[in-house]
């Protein structure tokens, strides 16, 4: 019983991390209609930025804030400088450019910060809560992770559903020309979309790194699972991304615990294929026709 509880709780906190990353993918998809494969590498980069600041003696929260701000700037810069020339062309071009960015960021991080493992501090305790006699695999830091993910999800939902800005972002992503005719500053919207997505991605990077080991490729697994989570959720809804993340986290934790750690990646693939066969638009997509 304790084992099951621990697998479940471990899966939930791991799933929350995938969800955070899936949220970033959803955000950039809704704001620009492309999948950003460099998201993980950008998050890794800002996490190293935080680590450098923390190492130089600043507090965890200063590093945390700097990483989020760094994400905002980095996202905007990447959009303005690298993505702008390929936007509006075939979507595949933009996707391939993000793949190139992914490799470039990893290499740059290895040069700047070194390629070895380093530990990343956590702001809260890493010892599990005790319930009665039993210690459960749920730490104060897990609570922080899950709370952050819920807050981001609610904020994104609110942004897209209730604000004028969210409407304009969706509009410019979906149809640039029509939006332009209607007076939306499309360029700014795209930059904003990238910047916000990079902030959420940076947050995911910080949450994964907390109390764990980081190295330039530490986001690789999360990119894959976060992508599966986003596709499960249908790539459209923040709620779907979070649900997808939690499902993947739980499923992989059970697979790793009951079947064996070597089957984890296979299981992720199996889930992805199964969901796409049954519900090609994801578990949480509602309408086929899009309203803007």
């Amino acid at each position, binding site marked *: 019983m304790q084992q099951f509880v*621990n697998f479940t709780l471990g899966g939930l906190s791991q799933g929350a991390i995938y969800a955070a990353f899936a949220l970033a993918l959803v955000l950039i998809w809704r704001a620009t209609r492309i999948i950003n494969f460099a998201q993980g590498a950008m998050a890794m980069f800002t996490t190293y930025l935080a680590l450098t600041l923390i190492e130089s003696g600043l507090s965890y929260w200063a590093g945390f804030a700097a990483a989020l701000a760094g994400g905002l700037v980095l996202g905007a810069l990447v959009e303005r400088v690298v993505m702008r020339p390929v936007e509006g062309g075939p979507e595949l071009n933009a996707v391939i450019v993000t793949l190139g960015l992914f490799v470039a960021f990893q290499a740059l991080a290895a040069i700047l910060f070194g390629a*070895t*493992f380093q530990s990343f501090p*956590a702001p809260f305790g*890493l*010892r599990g809560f005790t319930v009665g006699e039993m210690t459960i695999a749920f730490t104060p830091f897990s609570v922080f992770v899950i709370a952050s993910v819920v807050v981001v999800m609610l904020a994104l939902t609110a942004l897209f559903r209730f604000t004028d800005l969210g409407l304009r972002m969706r509009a410019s992503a979906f149809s640039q020309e029509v939006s332009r005719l209607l007076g939306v500053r499309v360029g700014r919207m795209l930059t904003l979309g990238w910047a916000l997505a990079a902030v959420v991605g940076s947050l995911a990077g910080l949450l994964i790194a907390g109390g764990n080991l980081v190295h330039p490729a530490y986001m690789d*697994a999360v990119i894959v699972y976060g992508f599966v989570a986003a596709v499960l959720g249908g790539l459209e809804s923040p709620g779907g991304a979070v649900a997808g993340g939690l499902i993947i986290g739980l499923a992989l934790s059970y697979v790793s615990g009951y079947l064996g750690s*070597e089957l984890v990646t296979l299981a992720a693939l199996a889930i992805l294929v199964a969901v796409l066969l049954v519900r090609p638009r994801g578990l949480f997509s509602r309408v086929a026709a899009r309203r803007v």
Partner: protein
Amino acid sequence: MRRPGQRGLAVGALATIVTLLITSCGAGGRPEEDQGGGSASDVGVTAESVKVGAHFPLTGVAAPGYSEIPTGAKAYFDFVNAAGGVNGRRIDYVYRDDAYNPTNTSQVVNELVLQDEIFAMVGGLGTPTHSAVLDFLNSSEVPDLFVSSGSLLWDQPETNPQTFGWQPDYEVEGKIIGQYVQQNFPDAKVGLFLQDDDFGEDGEKGARAYIDDQIVAAERYAPGNTDVGPQVAALQAAGADLVIGFNVPSYTALSQLTAMRLNYDPQWIYSNVGSDPALVGSLLSRFSEGQVTDAALLQGVMTTEYLPGVDAPDNAWTKLWQRVWDAHGGQGQLSNYRIYGMAQAYTFVQALQAAGPDPTREGIVTALEEMGGELRGPAFVPYRYSADSHAGLSGVKVVRIAGTGGTEDLSPVLVTGNGDTEITEHTEEHAAPPENGIPNVQPQN
């Protein structure tokens, strides 16, 4: 990525042209190598130098710790070169990064053998990585000395006559740990935390020879998957109160961290490979802002030793390594990984001396088979080299990590072999290094 390759090609082409010129010019004259002591007796050997190579993970998941090994070996070779080399030959040591990825290993070893034309491999690291080049090295008849891995694969003189192991293999280590647990923790419920490859498998085999009935769970982690939560939770659920880990250092840190999360506090025993307190401590040092200190976290953990390390600064061997590192080391401090590299380099110098003034690839292999068993060096125990055995060191002692990063002995030095060979105490005293720090092995004939 592309530029160095092209440059390498250009350099290679240039080297070929120069070589052609030299050979055509020298065609009429006397080969100049004949004067003086040595000559160009085989590939990679000239009158002035012997070139050896190795592959190491300098980046990636296995890099922490292991990337320091070649810096140690290099420092020792430089130390020997500064004193005149071996039979007047300088040792050129070339090591390349394979990132612990077998595909890269094949590529870099190809470069070492075909492009750099090394005389021998010395200390190529890793079970999965080195397995990938085992056939190539043996079919190319390149001596493949002192593989940095405790797998049983290196001891197959029939199929792989060029390959020699070096460190105690994981089965020997597993057996000695198993017997220690059987004698000292007869009531413990033992859990195994294993890397899911030969490393974990050989260690498990050794341990099960003694404590099969005490083992309540064997959990395997896939290298690369950094979430070991489910594995540690399963060990806890099985009620294991003593866990033996055959894993690499980063997974020692991860398993300690996960156990802390679960408030799981068994007696931990880690294999020598994964237990370096300095490295694991540095990996864990930043967690929880001082709630966990590096020394405290591994205190009381048991492991094994076969070389005097940095925790024994007064040992004559450690003093030698410190002297070598101070004179020829690069950045950073002397560490147990650097000592490992230096000890391997020391063994290679012994082997090269044993191969005589005109070393050949065949000669160095024969010399190790004939004299390897008598070589004494930095390790507490002798090697098992003979015509029928290419297995490395024969044993370890069990130690406990004390608070300050030092260790205290729990058992005498124990030696054994594979399979049913009994475990016996090794009573021969560990001889100090030669005064000048360089071995002096006389060739047999």
